[in-house]
């Protein structure tokens, strides 16, 4: 734990050395989020609600999404880069330290632009999403579970690169896909797509279930969310450990 704190402190120090760019990035990210909310407001303005989704629930969805993304991609910024780092041999310096590689790797870098999300999400929730005590508690728990799913999913994709090769592109595509699907209401998807969102691209756990829980708590759904998060986290940690055995320190690509 001491190492985690020290590592994150250093990561923040580094991000903070360029303050001007830090605030610029944060502002830009928030503007980006607002554009998407504008899209939904325009749509609802024309067609009323969409399968029970209105502007208020979209705001809640964005609050959860940006909070979780801020945690997963802003605070633990290396989560999306594991595959690429493995291919380029960048795990070497981490592996020579007496620490748990995955934990250290994840806490080693923060991404300033996505920290904007981490500010934006809670602001959105507390101003526009009806923050009662109960809702706030579920929002926090749900966002944490959601962030865990995101991180675990990205680590899993990175471990996949270690295990089966490639340059880490599948991480990028998977990352884009899970974020895109997560930024739309789960209820608009049906059939095979919905099944996919509970499994291969776990967007349902990122926004679908947490948002549903904040609006209407249900113990079974909550258990499903936590269980899903725990399962994928475990799977990711194990795959990464297994992947390290196949780690080739970039040798695959530097050798003829």
């Amino acid at each position: 734990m001491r190492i985690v704190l020290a590592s994150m402190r250093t990561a923040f120090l580094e991000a903070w050395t360029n303050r001007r760019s830090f605030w610029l990035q944060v502002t830009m990210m928030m503007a980006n989020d607002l554009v998407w909310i504008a899209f939904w407001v325009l749509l609802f303005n024309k067609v009323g609600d969409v399968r029970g989704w209105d502007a208020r629930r979209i705001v809640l969805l964005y609050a959860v999404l940006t909070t979780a993304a801020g945690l997963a991609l802003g605070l633990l910024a290396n989560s999306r880069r594991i595959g690429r780092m493995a291919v380029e041999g960048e795990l070497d310096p981490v592996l020579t330290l007496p620490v748990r590689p995955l934990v250290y790797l994840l806490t080693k870098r923060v991404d300033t632009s996505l920290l904007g999300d981490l500010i934006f999400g809670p602001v959105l929730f507390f101003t526009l999403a009806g923050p009662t005590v109960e809702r706030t508690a579920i929002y926090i728990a749900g966002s944490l579970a959601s962030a865990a799913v995101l991180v675990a999913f990205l680590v899993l994709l990175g471990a996949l690169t270690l295990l089966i090769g490639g340059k880490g592109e599948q991480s990028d595509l998977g990352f884009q896909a899970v974020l895109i699907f997560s930024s739309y209401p789960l209820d608009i998807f049906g059939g095979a797509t919905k099944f996919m969102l509970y499994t291969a691209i776990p967007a349902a756990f990122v926004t679908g279930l947490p948002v549903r829980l904040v609006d209407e708590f249900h113990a079974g759904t909550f258990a499903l969310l936590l269980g899903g998060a725990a399962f994928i986290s475990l799977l990711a940690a194990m795959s990464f450990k297994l992947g390290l055995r196949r780690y080739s320190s970039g040798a695959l690509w530097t050798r003829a």
Partner: protein
Amino acid sequence: MAVIEARQLSKSFPGRGRKAAPVEAVRDVTFSIDAGERIAYIGPNGAGKSTSIKMLTGILHPSAGAATVLGYVPWTERRHLAQRIGTLFGQRSQLWFQLTPRQAYRLLGDIYGLTRAEAASRVDELGLLLEATDLFDRQVKGLSLGQRMRCELAASLLHSPEVLFLDEPTIGLDLVAKQRFREMIVRLNEEKGTTVFLTSHDVADIEHVARRVIVINHGHVIYDDRVSTMRRSILSHKLLEVRFDESPGVLDIAAVEILKHSGLGYKLIVDTTVRSIKDVLDELLDRFVVGDISVEDPPLEDVIGNIYESPER
């Protein structure tokens, strides 16, 4: 006492493409290194140097064979081992580009479980040893490569490791910085007794740092002996450069071979175990009209080159 033991250590990587044969980067590497030694582990590009060092530090899992470092099996007891060894990879930084070295040392101190006070006094000590105190409070991105490498070395030494692994540490440094870096390594070994295991393809690293040299090529160890022994084998020959004023005709001198010639300029090699250099010079000056003459030791590079080119054992 041996601190590093490798027995038939081998590593193959999956080949590129689905059906490509695996690439054997290291094959049956065996050696034993005692505490306090200074080893140069050399070989041409792609010979398996980095792969070996990465197995010994626990980064890579070997495909076959065994190794222990300080009694640990590196790849299964990596974190215990990491606590007691230092590593420096010339092309990978342990520092944070935007921060000062001192800020990075603070984190590394936490990682190695040093108290704040221990870390601080150790940093002071290393600042003196590496003549780098004034660099520790500057942003890493503003340091020259030579300055940065000294700061990197301090990072590797923060936890007082017993064995120091250096992978191509002088790559890209200018001559002065290289020489300075080598002196630091030697001083560290002499003052602290730290075992030094260094890979390089710069021959000067061997001459100035190592006392023993292990040559690896095509994944095999092909030479393993003291640098002084290697030097002696060099001294069994001398190079002569001669410019004649008149054509010498057929050059038939005992113990002398012609390496190459153009016009009146000749490059000769003398086997000094057969005949003394003075004898050869006397004969040359007696029999031929010599305009200019010089005597040299063959460069170490050539000798090592010969070792590389020798058939695989």
